[in-house]
């Protein structure tokens, strides 16, 4: 009857925190399944839920699908499992097969410490977990002389999962990125600068379940197209982790010129940032985002002192998330390399023209000064005009 459907290769997806979320569990699982489907759309995958696990059938190369799943937040680990009926002899056959495949990946004749680990969700199965472990061990040991039982530090673990619909046997385990499925925590707008930090901040936000939209403040006539190209390329890279992504490119030359003319030099950078946040807050309203995300780290540059962050946060009534607040630059760089944004981030393209940069930026900005200076020019008009001329792009990898 369903025999033909049951057997074959499945990707056995485990999720960590997702499983712990009480009543929200269904919601989280649905989100994770949706994200897995999207990540594997090109692989024509069939994604199903099975109590506490997600099972994926792919017609093509499972290795490619596993590779894709390493970028799906919420996944703790993935195994390539062989599905089989629940006859003991079938379990033995599959266990021997996966063990042989794994041993083939460890060439030479060194001994391989191993164990069998069974989980029995279907309690009607006649043997309990321990009994299955012993039974399979007894079958595998004589067939593969390199195997030595080692329950404490196995190098090879043959996993068996006996479930309602079928049993699954596997011996590999690829770590997922952890975190929460993109989308479950809501939406946020990332202020992308083109540097090293903001893409990492975006990635960390996605890791905690945020779906992010991007905004670039672009003074085209002063920094050229390269800065925009770079930002778009970064968004393309980051869309690997959340699917197709949107970026708003906000023209910023007029704002910068106005501030350049009207403000005391040391305050310029803070005032640019305040204008960015005012505009970004409006974009959030438009696109249903509930927070801003920036790449700020405390004290990294002059605009990122605590006093200045306070001045910036005063600009708009919206939470500003700063995932890198406590990161050292080297930690951020290491993460950027892992994510794959580093090489693009260091591409030469100025994000702020030197004519706008103050020689000696203030390090202890005062909120009242910021407000006073802003009272001397038409903030609302600048915000509205920037929003009106904003370009939107949808990008994917």
């Amino acid at each position, binding site marked *: 009857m369903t025999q033909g459907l049951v057997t074959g290769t499945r990707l056995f997806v485990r999720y960590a925190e997702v499983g712990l979320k009480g009543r929200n569990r269904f919601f989280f699982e649905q989100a994770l399944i949706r994200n897995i489907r999207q990540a594997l759309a090109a692989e024509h995958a069939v994604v199903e839920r099975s109590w506490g696990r997600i099972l994926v059938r792919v017609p093509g190369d499972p290795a490619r699908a596993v590779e894709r799943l390493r970028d799906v937040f919420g996944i703790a680990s993935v195994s390539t499992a062989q599905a089989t009926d629940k006859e003991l002899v079938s379990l033995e056959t599959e266990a021997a097969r996966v063990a042989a495949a794994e041993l083939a990946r460890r060439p030479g004749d060194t001994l391989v410490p191993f164990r069998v680990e069974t989980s029995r969700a279907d309690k009607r199965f006649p043997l309990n977990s321990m009994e299955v472990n012993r039974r399979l061990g007894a079958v595998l040991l004589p067939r593969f002389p390199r195997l030595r039982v080692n329950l404490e530090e196995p190098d090879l673990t043959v996993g068996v999962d006996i479930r309602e619909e079928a049993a699954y046997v596997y011996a590999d385990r690829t770590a997922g990125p952890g975190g929460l499925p993109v989308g479950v925590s809501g939406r946020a707008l990332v202020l992308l600068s083109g540097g090293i930090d903001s893409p990492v901040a975006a990635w960390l936000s996605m890791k905690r379940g945020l779906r992010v939209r991007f905004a670039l403040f672009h003074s085209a006539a002063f920094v050229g197209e390269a800065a925009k190209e770079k930002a778009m390329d970064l968004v393309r890279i980051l869309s690997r982790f959340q699917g197709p992504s949107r970026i708003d490119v906000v023209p910023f030359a007029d704002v910068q010129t106005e501030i350049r003319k009207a403000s005391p030099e040391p305050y310029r950078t803070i005032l640019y940032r305040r204008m960015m946040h005012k505009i970004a807050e409006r974009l959030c309203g438009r696109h249903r985002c509930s927070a801003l995300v920036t790449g700020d780290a405390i004290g990294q540059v002059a605009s990122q002192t605590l006093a200045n962050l306070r001045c910036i946060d005063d600009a708009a009534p919206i939470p500003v998330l700063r995932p890198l607040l406590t990161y050292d630059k080297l930690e951020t760089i290491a993460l950027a390399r892992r994510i794959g944004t580093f090489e693009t981030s260091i591409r030469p393209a100025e994000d702020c023209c030197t*004519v706008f940069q103050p020689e000696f930026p203030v390090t202890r900005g005062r909120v009242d000064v910021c407000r006073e200076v802003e009272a001397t020019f038409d903030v609302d008009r600048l915000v509205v005009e920037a929003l009106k001329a904003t370009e939107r792009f949808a990008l994917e990898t």
Partner: protein
Amino acid sequence: MEGAVYLDNAATTRCDPRVAEAIGRTLSEDYGNPSSVHPLGVRAGRALRAARETLARALDAGPANVFFTSGGTEANNLALLGFARATRRHGLHVVVSAIEHPSTLGAVKALEEEGFETAIAPVDEKGRIDPDAFGELLRPDTVAVAVMLANNEVGAVAPIAEIAKRVRSRSPRAVFHVDAVQAFGKIPVSIRALGADSLSVSAHKIHGPKGVGALVLGGRRRPRALVFGGGQEENLRPGTENLPGIVGFARAAALAIETLEAEAARLRALRDRLWAGLAKHIPDLRRNGDPEACVPTILSLTFPGVPAEALLHQLEAKGIYVSAGAACHAKKSSLSHVLVALGLDRAHVNSTLRFSVGRFTTEEDVAVALDAVPAAYEGLRALASKR
């Protein structure tokens, strides 16, 4: 790009449609391998020979002395590395000018790692080389000398024939290489008249295709090859010949030589009008290089008090494309070694733009630039000075 005012012809040029047509025909019809013996191969061989002859004529060299490469960089590398390695038993000393192209300076750096010693000849504030001062650096054990005919950033033309005389008398064993990439097609170039042993040229600077150039030799001396293979180009540069590129190069060279005199006069007039017009509106404007000895195409200008990058982008926003220094530097944050060699300080180097005209530059283009540059400069100047 349609409608753009392209004033960056020293970086590269638009391929002439007649050249593109010749390339297309070679790609789809004369696609044989010149080494093949069947009729297609024979035809390809004939086209290759014809191209070689055209290049030889254009540079006053023997056809047997034209060796096609992937471009100027490879030709400079082949000359410097190849000749120095071939003659190292005579000495380990190399002399180059301070304003050579990175492909020459890079090759020299590689030679230093092989034990060679380098003397860098200075230039004056206009980018000029004094042949006598240059001669002082030459030694009996000097084995390779390289000087560019026209500089790519400021356009200065070096007194090659004079330098050649010093090389012959003071360093009789040395090979004298001349980088003619920016000069070829813009001023008459004869390897005999220059007294050089080798000359590098590139197609894409003369409205030809990218990816093809040549090393032209003056006599019987041969550099040592850098790549090894099936014997093409007398084994000096083996690998199946880039025939479409070579045919395009020859066509581009022929077109450039045919009209050289009239075109040079036209370009010089355009460039000088640009200079005069800008100088009138921008009193502080400084022209770099030597107006007395300069290729007709290049105008290097320093806009004091304004970051060149910003001015470049302001012009770009108006559809006018120029370079900050050479295109090769534009993406690096390091200072142009050429402008530094001319004695410009950091602020001036960072305020320098290069305008370069070419075959498709019109009077209209110059008028557009004359209209836009002063305004952009004034705007930035006002922003930049308000501290």
